[in-house]
């Protein structure tokens, strides 16, 4: 885990939504690095900006409402945010692919799955149809779909949710990408299928030394899969660190709240803990801690100034005034 090669470097990414006159800072200055072979988890509530971060990386955003205002996304020395449409399409699916949340609706109902996997291959590589079909068959084997030669000619609706997600993963793997962006890949699936899909992703990561960015709102999924994690809230990263460290000693009150909301099997509780309130709407620029309205340890400074991203240890950061006293110099 020491001195791994950085494959993706996101620097001060800002992505804003514009709805009418309102400007919503969906992602407001997010920076992180992804190492080769690493699984990075991004966790947060709905509306925390985690999906937008990942979509910004390959610019899979609605042009009419969303703009990347600032930042750099360095992949192999190239800034993905400055690529032309053509260059970007060469990256999408070839070097960086994405796995989505809703497997059924992410597949076109009018084509067989074999057809769709072949298209994913032929988009980036020129080969005969027959060869592409062989590769598609091989991919289905890799994602552990039983009797793949029969499934190849099935339509998406004929498969179960877990199988559909495996097909999507096969499509994402079609051109052997270096990074997979998984946007809540298991949210639509039931728990047993969930763990199977996670195991599959882990196995593929190990075999191919791929990097994965895994978005989820499930702390359990992070604990099972990830090496490092980011906790996002209101468009910024609140806490960053190795999963073992964050789970052992969470720093930010928000992370504490998230961990406290996980139901435990040992304790018998009448009511599940939940962080009070909802994610508020922000308007740029923000001049307070974004979590202050819901924080149980809030004090005056939190409402007056946005806390910087404070380094606590090796690769361990937190955005909270509680930790500012000792370490005033850092700025994020």
């Amino acid at each position, binding site marked *: 885990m020491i001195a791994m090669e950085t494959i993706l470097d996101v620097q001060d990414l800002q992505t804003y939504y514009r709805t009418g006159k309102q400007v919503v800072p969906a992602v407001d200055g997010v920076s992180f690095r992804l190492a080769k072979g690493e699984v990075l988890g991004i966790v947060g509530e709905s509306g925390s900006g985690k999906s937008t971060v990942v979509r910004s990386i390959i610019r899979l955003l609605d042009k009419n409402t969303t703009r990347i205002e600032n930042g750099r996304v360095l992949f192999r020395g190239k800034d993905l945010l400055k690529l032309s449409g053509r260059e970007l399409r060469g990256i999408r699916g070839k070097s960086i692919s994405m796995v*989505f949340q809703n497997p059924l*609706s992410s597949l076109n109902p009018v084509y067989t799955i074999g057809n769709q996997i072949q298209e994913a291959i032929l988009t980036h590589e020129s080969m005969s149809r027959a060869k592409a079909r062989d590769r598609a068959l091989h991919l289905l084997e890799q994602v552990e779909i039983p009797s793949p030669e029969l499934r190849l000619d099935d339509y998406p609706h004929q498969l179960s949710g877990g199988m559909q997600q495996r097909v999507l993963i096969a499509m994402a793997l079609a051109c052997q990408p270096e990074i997979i962006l998984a946007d809540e890949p298991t949210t639509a699936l039931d728990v047993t299928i969930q763990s199977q899909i996670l195991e599959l992703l882990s196995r593929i990561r190990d075999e191919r030394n791929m990097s994965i960015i895994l978005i989820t709102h499930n702390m359990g999924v992070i604990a099972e899969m990830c090496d490092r994690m980011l906790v996002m809230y209101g468009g910024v990263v609140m806490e960053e660190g190795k999963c073992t460290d964050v789970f052992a000693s969470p720093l930010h009150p928000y992370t504490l709240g998230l961990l406290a909301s996980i139901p435990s099997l040992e304790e018998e509780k009448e009511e599940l803990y939940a962080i009070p309130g909802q994610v508020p709407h922000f308007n740029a620029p923000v001049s307070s801690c974004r979590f202050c309205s819901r924080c149980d340890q809030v004090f005056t400074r939190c409402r007056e100034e946005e806390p910087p991203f404070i380094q606590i240890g090796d690769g361990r950061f937190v955005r909270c005034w509680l930790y500012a006293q000792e370490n005033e110099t850092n700025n994020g």
Partner: protein
Amino acid sequence: MKIPPFILFLMISFGLIVIASMLAPVLFPIDLSDTELMARFKPPRFIDSGSEYLFGTDSLGRDVGIRLLYATRTSIFIAFAGMVLATIFGLIMGVLSGLNGGLTDLVLTFVTDSQLSVPTTFIGIICATIMGSDAITSIIVIGVTGWPGFARLVRSQVIQLKEANFVESSRSLGATKTRIFFEHILTNISSPLIVYATMNLSSFILLESSLSYIGLGIQPPGTSLGVMVSDGRNYLLQSWWMAIVPSVLIVLLILQISMIGDWLRDKLDPKLKNKS
């Protein structure tokens, strides 16, 4: 695909009518302007079993049965050609408006809605005045009055589909816009479009008949179902078959097409398909 016997019956009977009418010039090679004044107003065989004319004759002694075939041929041809024109034009307008959105969408939607507010007969009169009354004019009138429905359907489908997850998924895999349009959007529009076109074919047959009936469509000695009904109008009391026989055929054609279209809609609806 399993076709219920009733639908199969409708399809076969519709097919027979179409084939018979298309073969009319081969089966009964007559000159449409030929008259036989000695054989005026001969009753059809289902009234007078001794009659030599199956559907009787008209005011100029022409065989109603044979003319019926020629008329159906013209009517179906015009309705079909008009439908193709309306579909293509509506498809282009709907795609442009749905894909681009913004100002283009606003303008095209306004044009579509304005078009719908102009009465069909008015369009018919204008077109007939400018271009004269013939088959081409009828086709154009049908195309011009028919496209807004297609455009609306296509627009709503395109707007839905361009946000579809599988389109996004395909974008994330590096597909180009053209490719996404032809592979993901157009293919998914095609089945509702086919259903809509089928359902509309019947109303286009009716429209063609109405145009000819008021004298804006096919001109004598040519004939269409509307022309025949119009011709028979003056003799409704003494020789009612002249108007009733073509009217019944119009009703039959429309019923057949509508029912086949209904069945097609249920069959091709992707939401219903998933359940089976």
